[in-house]
C-alpha cells in the first residue's frame, strides 16, 4: 500500500489514482485489517493493565483523578515532552519580526461589529475563562485538567478572533513568555524535584498536590496560548499575503 503512495506522489500530474489501483489498494487494506482483527480476537488481553498499580499509588500521587495522576505524576515525562511538541509547532509558525509594542491584545475600535456580538463576547469570554479555571481546578478530583482547560480558554480567544475586532501580537515578550511558560515551569519543577528528592520529576509526597497545580496552571496558560496561536496564525495566513504574515 505504501508503494502506491510513492507512485502517486512521484507522478506529478497524476491527479487521482486509477480505479483499478484504488480497488486493489482497498482490497489489500481490507485484507490487512481483517488479519489484524483476527489477531486481536485470538489473543487475550492483559487484565487489568496498569489499573491496579495506578489505583494503589493514587493516594501518594497528590491528586485524586487517576488520569491526572498519570499525566502529571506517574508519567509526567510524557506530558513534558508533549508540551515541547506543542512548542515546536508554535515556534514554527510564529511571526519572525520582532515588534516594538508591548500589548499582547489589541482592539481596533474602528471595526464595527454588531452590538449583539459585542454583548455575546462580553459574556462568552469571561465564561470560557471561568469554565477553564473550573476544569483546571477540578482536574485534580474529576475529569478535566490542563489540556481541557487550555482548549476552553483558547476557545475564548478563537471567539474574539472570529469577531474580527481583536488582534493578537505574538511577537511581544508577554506572548513569548506565555508560549514558553508551561515547559519552563515544568522543567524547573523537575529540576527542583531532582535536588530535593534526588530523582527528577519525583514529587515529595506531602508537596505533590500544590506542585502539580503549579505545573498545571503554567501548562494551561501555555496550551491555551499555543492553541490560540495555531488558530490565529492559520486564519491570518489564509486571509492575507506572504509579507503581511511576518508582521
Amino acid at each position, binding site marked *: 500500500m505504501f508503494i502506491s503512495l510513492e507512485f502517486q506522489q512521484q507522478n*506529478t500530474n497524476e491527479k487521482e489514482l486509477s480505479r483499478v489501483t484504488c480497488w486493489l489498494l482497498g482490497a489489500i487494506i481490507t485484507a490487512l485489517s481483517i488479519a489484524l482483527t483476527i489477531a486481536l480476537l485470538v489473543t487475550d488481553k492483559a487484565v487489568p493493565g496498569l489499573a491496579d498499580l495506578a489505583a494503589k499509588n493514587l493516594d501518594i500521587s497528590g491528586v485524586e*483523578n487517576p488520569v491526572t495522576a498519570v499525566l502529571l505524576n506517574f508519567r509526567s515525562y510524557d506530558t513534558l515532552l508533549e508540551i515541547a511538541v506543542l512548542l515546536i509547532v508554535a515556534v514554527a509558525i510564529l511571526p519572525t519580526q520582532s515588534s516594538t509594542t508591548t500589548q499582547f491584545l489589541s482592539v481596533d475600535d474602528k471595526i464595527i461589529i454588531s452590538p449583539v456580538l459585542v454583548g455575546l463576547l462580553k459574556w462568552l469570554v469571561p465564561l470560557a475563562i471561568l469554565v477553564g479555571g473550573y476544569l483546571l481546578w477540578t482536574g485534580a478530583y474529576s475529569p*478535566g485538567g490542563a489540556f*481541557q482547560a487550555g*482548549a476552553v480558554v483558547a*476557545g475564548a480567544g478563537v471567539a474574539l478572533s472570529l469577531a474580527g475586532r481583536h488582534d493578537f501580537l505574538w511577537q511581544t515578550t508577554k506572548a513569548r513568555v506565555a508560549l514558553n511558560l508551561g515547559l519552563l515551569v515544568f522543567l524547573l519543577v523537575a529540576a527542583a524535584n531532582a535536588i530535593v528528592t534526588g530523582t527528577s520529576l519525583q514529587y515529595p509526597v506531602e508537596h505533590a498536590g500544590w506542585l502539580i497545580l503549579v505545573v498545571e496552571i503554567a501548562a494551561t496558560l501555555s496550551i491555551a496560548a499555543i492553541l490560540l496561536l495555531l488558530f490565529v496564525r492559520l486564519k491570518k495566513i*489564509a*486571509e492575507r499575503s506572504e509579507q503581511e504574515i511576518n508582521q
Partner: protein
Amino acid sequence: MSAEIIIDIILSLSVLLLACLTLSARQVFTAIVLYVSLGLLVTIIWVRLNAWDVAIAEAAIGAGLTGALLLVAWRRLSNEAAAKFESSNDVY
C-alpha cells in the same frame, strides 16, 4: 444481548459509516463538516468507554479546534486543483 450492547453496535456502525462518508464526500467542505460530526459521535463512544477526560478533550480539541483549523484553511485552499499534492519538479 442487552440494550447496552445494541447501543454500542449502533454507535459502531454509524461511526464507520460516517468515516466512509467523510472520506468519500464530493466537496471538501462537506468532508470537514462530516469529520467534525464524526468527532462528536466518537465523543459519545469515549463516554461509553468511561473515558470522560478524553471525551472532553476530544470535543474541545479533536473535533472543535481541528475542525476550526480545517475550516479556516479551507477558505484559502478550497481550490481543489491548486491544493493538490504535487511533487516539485525542480528537485529532479
